[in-house]
């Protein structure tokens, strides 16, 4: 009965926010394109056609072709897979590190709290691009560099959130009574704190996903991220860059539009979800 009402409430709040529905639809489209990509594109993203280079968008090639005559639409569609894969890996790594350190800082506190939070502050002082440049200097550009760099810059937000949630849950009576009947630290952190801090952290992942998509594209654009010939959105834009001053706009326009739509969808959905689960943060 009670549970039923809760879902009804969630459903109602979510549907009342039209923008978050738009966001959800965009995200679903993005995921579908990512998973079904190979089945819906008319060409392979790697097939070159030298009789058909830099051709404008047409019925045959809806997004046009690039300097090797590759179909741009196929490449942009495959790009969604690249973004999803990198996004999921970075989300997983940064959540795991952030949750573990955040719970330790919040629950055990003391010196652990001080040390962990100072490191959070330290990593926040450096923008992701600088961290990526450092890693790229050490191990060269590539998917691995990108994943490490983004995980390093994303765990800080998770740790802060996990610590804050832990601090408030720690005060609850059931935690105190668990302690009274002899529940150990690890037991409490694993069985009582973790399940309770997961929902807000999972919701924040939607917004993080958007930031990861943006950073992935940006870092690949300046050459420290994904390397050719992987069809990554930022990389496609970087290839099209030199043609923008001679008028071949589609090479830059379509992959960028894909980035913008995806990030916008994730942001709108993330805002909507946050409104449901955290009414305090609701936008005025």
């Amino acid at each position, binding site marked *: 009965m009670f549970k039923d009402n809760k879902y009804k409430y969630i459903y109602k709040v979510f549907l009342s926010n039209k923008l978050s529905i738009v966001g959800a639809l965009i995200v679903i489209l993005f995921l579908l394109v990512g998973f079904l990509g190979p089945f819906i594109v008319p060409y392979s993203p790697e097939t070159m056609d030298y009789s058909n280079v830099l051709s404008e968008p047409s019925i045959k090639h809806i997004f046009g072709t690039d300097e090797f005559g590759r179909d741009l639409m196929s490449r942009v569609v495959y790009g969604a897979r690249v973004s999803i894969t990198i996004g999921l890996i970075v989300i997983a790594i940064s959540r795991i590190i952030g949750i573990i350190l955040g719970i330790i800082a919040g629950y055990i506190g003391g010196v652990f709290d001080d040390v962990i939070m100072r490191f959070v*502050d*330290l990593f926040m002082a450096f923008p992701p691009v*600088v961290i990526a440049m450092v890693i790229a200097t050490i191990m060269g550009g590539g998917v691995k560099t990108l994943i490490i760099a983004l995980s390093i810059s994303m765990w800080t937000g998770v740790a802060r959130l996990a610590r804050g949630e832990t601090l408030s849950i720690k005060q609850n009576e059931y935690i105190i009574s668990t302690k009274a009947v002899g529940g150990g630290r690890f037991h409490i952190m694993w069985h009582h704190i973790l399940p309770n801090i997961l929902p807000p952290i999972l919701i924040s992942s939607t917004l993080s996903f958007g930031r990861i998509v943006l950073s992935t594209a940006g870092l690949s654009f300046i050459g420290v991220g994904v390397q050719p010939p992987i069809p990554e959105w930022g990389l496609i834009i970087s290839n099209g860059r030199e043609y923008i001053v001679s008028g071949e706009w589609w090479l*830059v326009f379509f992959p960028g539009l894909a980035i913008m739509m995806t990030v916008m969808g994730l*942001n709108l959905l993330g805002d909507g979800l946050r409104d449901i689960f955290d009414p305090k943060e609701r936008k005025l």
Partner: protein
Amino acid sequence: MNYHRYILKRLIFLIFVLIGASLISFFIVRVVPGDPARMMLPPQASPKDVARMRVELGLDEPYYVQYFNYISNILQGDLGFSHHTGRPVLEEFKRKLPASLELSILSLLLAGVVGIWLGVISAINKNKFIDHFARVFSIGGISAPGFWIGLLTIYFFYYRLGWLPAPSGRLDILTENINQITITNIYLLDAVLTRNWFFFKNAFLHLLLPVTVLSYSFLAMICRLTRGGMLEVLDSDYINFFRTNGVKKRRVIWIYALRNAVRPVLTMMGMFFARLLGGVVFIETVFNWPGIGRYAVDSIKFLDYPPIQGFIIFMALGYVLVNLIVDLLYMVLDPRVKY
């Protein structure tokens, strides 16, 4: 916590950031594959030469001695030599830093002024057209990559319309040779100081797109924050008090309310500036801007380590300075804060 302790705590943290940055930049060269001494010498150098170079560079010393030497070199302004250009890194930074500063300070100013203005306007016109417009505008700024918007503006304003110059850096290629006389290397300022209006116009036109594009996403974030803060403040008792006592509406909004509404913006300013410094890297790449961001990106391609080390130090220094300024501003703006 009293005020002195707060300042002390902040100072300790900022020093910690600098030490962190110096450690990262120190170890970066020591973990990369390959011997730095080997890399500084031509391929035909004998092992004996390499060994001598190692001693010369102090690489035979233990790490803590090397680190101490590294720090004392930095404090004396010695950031090493760029392997690629053969020039001292500090000299390169002196030439390139003003270009990046001009870009980022103007962007921050534009983002601050327009973002706060738009935030206030949309808060007092809540749910009217201008508010919806500002929201869509903000969502765009937060979602679209700056380098993409930059390239699109080049396409429209240079290729299609021909209104603005080609993205050739800070000046037209021809003008670059004429104007060698610079004082501060911040071109707009130099042009005013030398009353060279042709130079001013050229530099201004070249700044227009990169500054606008770089400021866009920060403008969007500042607008959202100001709007939220403003709505909260406008609801409070003291604002009603002013209004019922006959203080003009405009005065209440732009002075009494804004003063408090802008506080969340100020709190975020340090973080914004850090992100802005990151954004500089992309915008400089797009507009061929000869600043430190593009210099660092190029250095990675050439595996030229000293400029990258210098870049890390400069970024940390910028972050620390801005945060200090923000802390001080915060106290000036809100005398209630007594930490």
